[in-house]
């Protein structure tokens, strides 16, 4: 009897000890305000629901970190947050596991944004922002006017990267949003975009390299017209900076979540991605940062307050004049475009 008691006690002890070892998942985000927003709105509540123990790592350059981990055969992260162009690039270099669409709902993403490797969950626009101190009630309204230095004198700041800028350059040159990628796919089209950028170059006082820097330039009044991401412009505006911006002609990009090839907890990672991107959670993300859900269900049922819709790139009324950044085009042509851009910068 006492032996049986001891065995059953041992059995109870073992079974009680097991749940202590919760499934652990490591997620790599960009950190900062954005990383915190993702934690608060998305993965922390999802982890609680699933009973996962989630560890966060931060990396400002997700793709480089991903490549380092996968090629070194020392993958420590289970989920990585990337821009969709980087996601497509990572997929092309087979750095990502295919998404498990048995766990993740494939119909939660509009057809144009779908990816087999990196799940797009939020969106932003590369927008035109301006100092209301300099332009008051009469800022440039189109990219053509942004380029018009005679009518709108002032210091410009652009990102030191071809991404989005070559699309914008063509928009400024009168190319219709739907024709941007067909035009860019011809050698003359790319040359036309680069030539357009070269024309504005003398009026560009800063070529910024990080989103934080672009926000600082706006805040300090270092530049009067800044091409930046809408979230950055919105943050400066909300902090009382004399800044405004428009989604007219914005280039819409998405960020996505992928699972590195050889991730230690692959299945748990897929489950966490599915849970953290539920409509209510991606809608909640907009409480913290103005990156609208890719999943249209995020806009349904009043999950997002009406007055916030105008700050979100994918909000129904904002999409009209914009171009969706085409990740596949960038994977195919990105290096040539960036090289042409860098050479233009060096001239």
């Amino acid at each position, binding site marked *: 009897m006492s032996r049986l008691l001891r065995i059953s006690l041992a059995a109870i002890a073992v079974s009680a000890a097991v749940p202590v070892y919760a499934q652990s998942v490591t997620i790599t985000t960009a950190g900062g305000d954005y990383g915190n927003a993702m934690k608060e709105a998305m993965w922390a509540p999802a982890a609680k629901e699933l009973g996962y123990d989630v560890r966060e790592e931060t990396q400002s350059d997700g793709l480089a970190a991903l490549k380092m981990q996968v090629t070194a055969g020392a993958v420590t992260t289970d989920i990585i947050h990337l821009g969709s162009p980087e996601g497509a690039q990572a997929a092309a270099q087979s750095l990502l596991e295919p998404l498990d669409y048995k766990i993740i709902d494939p119909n939660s993403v509009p057809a144009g944004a779908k990816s087999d490797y990196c799940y797009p969950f939020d969106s932003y626009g590369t927008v035109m922002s301006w100092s209301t101190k300099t332009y008051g009630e009469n800022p440039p309204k189109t990219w053509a006017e942004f380029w018009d230095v005679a009518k709108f004198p002032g210091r410009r700041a652009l990102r030191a990267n071809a991404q989005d800028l070559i699309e914008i350059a063509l928009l400024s040159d009168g190319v219709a949003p739907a024709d941007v990628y067909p035009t860019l796919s011809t050698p003359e089209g790319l040359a036309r975009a680069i030539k357009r950028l070269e024309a504005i170059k003398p009026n560009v006082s800063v*070529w*910024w390299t990080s989103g934080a820097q672009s926000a600082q330039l706006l805040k*300090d009044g*270092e530049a009067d017209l800044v091409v930046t991401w809408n979230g950055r412009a919105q943050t400066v505006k909300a902090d009382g900076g004399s800044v405004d911006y428009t989604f007219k002609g914005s280039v819409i990009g998405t960020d996505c979540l992928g699972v590195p090839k050889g991730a230690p907890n692959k299945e748990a990672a897929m489950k966490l991605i599915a849970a953290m991107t539920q409509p209510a959670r991606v809608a909640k993300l907009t409480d913290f940062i103005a990156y609208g859900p890719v999943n249209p269900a995020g806009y349904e049922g009043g999950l997002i307050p009406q007055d916030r819709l105008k700050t979100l790139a994918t909000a129904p009324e904002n999409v009209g004049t914009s171009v969706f950044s085409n990740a596949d085009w960038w994977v195919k042509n990105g290096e040539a475009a*960036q090289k042409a851009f860098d050479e233009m910068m*060096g001239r």
Partner: protein
Amino acid sequence: MTIAADPALAAGARSERRFFLALSLPALVIVGLAAILPILWIIRQSFLTTGGEYTVGNYEKVLSSGLTWSALITTVELSLGTLAFCILLGTPLALALASVRPRVANLLMAFVMLPLWTSILVRTYGWLVLLRRDGLINAALTGSGLTAEPLPLVYNFTGTLIGMVHYMLPLFLLPVYAAMRDIDANLVRASASMGATLGQVIRTVILPLSAGGIFSGSMIVFIYTIGFFITPAVLGGGKVNPLSIRIERTLSTFQDWGSASVLGILLLVLMALVGAMFLVARRLVARNKVGAAHA
């Protein structure tokens, strides 16, 4: 000479050498693991395609690109510019420090060293606050009516150079100060008593005797600045693109490890060349000095 003559002493010297070699072994192992191995890895990487096959394509691609050469020129311009300002500002400062009373010198030295102990990132952003359009310096200039428009002090070559000189000045100063402090004060007095003017004393006594320190300082400045990244990245406004920034871009935008490795090797070769040039120049100067002393 006498050691070579006495076999017992020679054996003792040999065993002493072995002992010191053994003492430095752990350090050599660390250097081997932390410096030599990664360099070998980079060299191997530079001959690999993204698919992992051996190729010389990376070298062709990098060396035939105009971007590489303009980055190389920017790198050398930044290093030479920094060096020139360090010599212009640092040498008189070292002279002043070496000629005041030790207690005052120590106090002044603390002021020189203080920025050295501050993180380079903090200092670089500090310059941003001072130099930008509505920064302290421009506010003072336009406020006092000295200039009508704010000066373009940052997000360009000027701003980058200011940040780099500020970072390197203490590192230049230390060896120069050490060399000047060691000059026998009697030599200065002797030359003065024989009627040398201050300019002559500096030119014919102090500068030749501190040349070693100035060379060491210059070498430190040049070799350090060749690899500078943060300062041009933050203060250059995207317009100042030395090799270090080219490497970062090649890695982060293109994930092209092969080409980035080639650029890294280029940087290494540049450093080795400059280091060798300094060593040769130093030897020549030393020989001249000895020659002059004998003459």
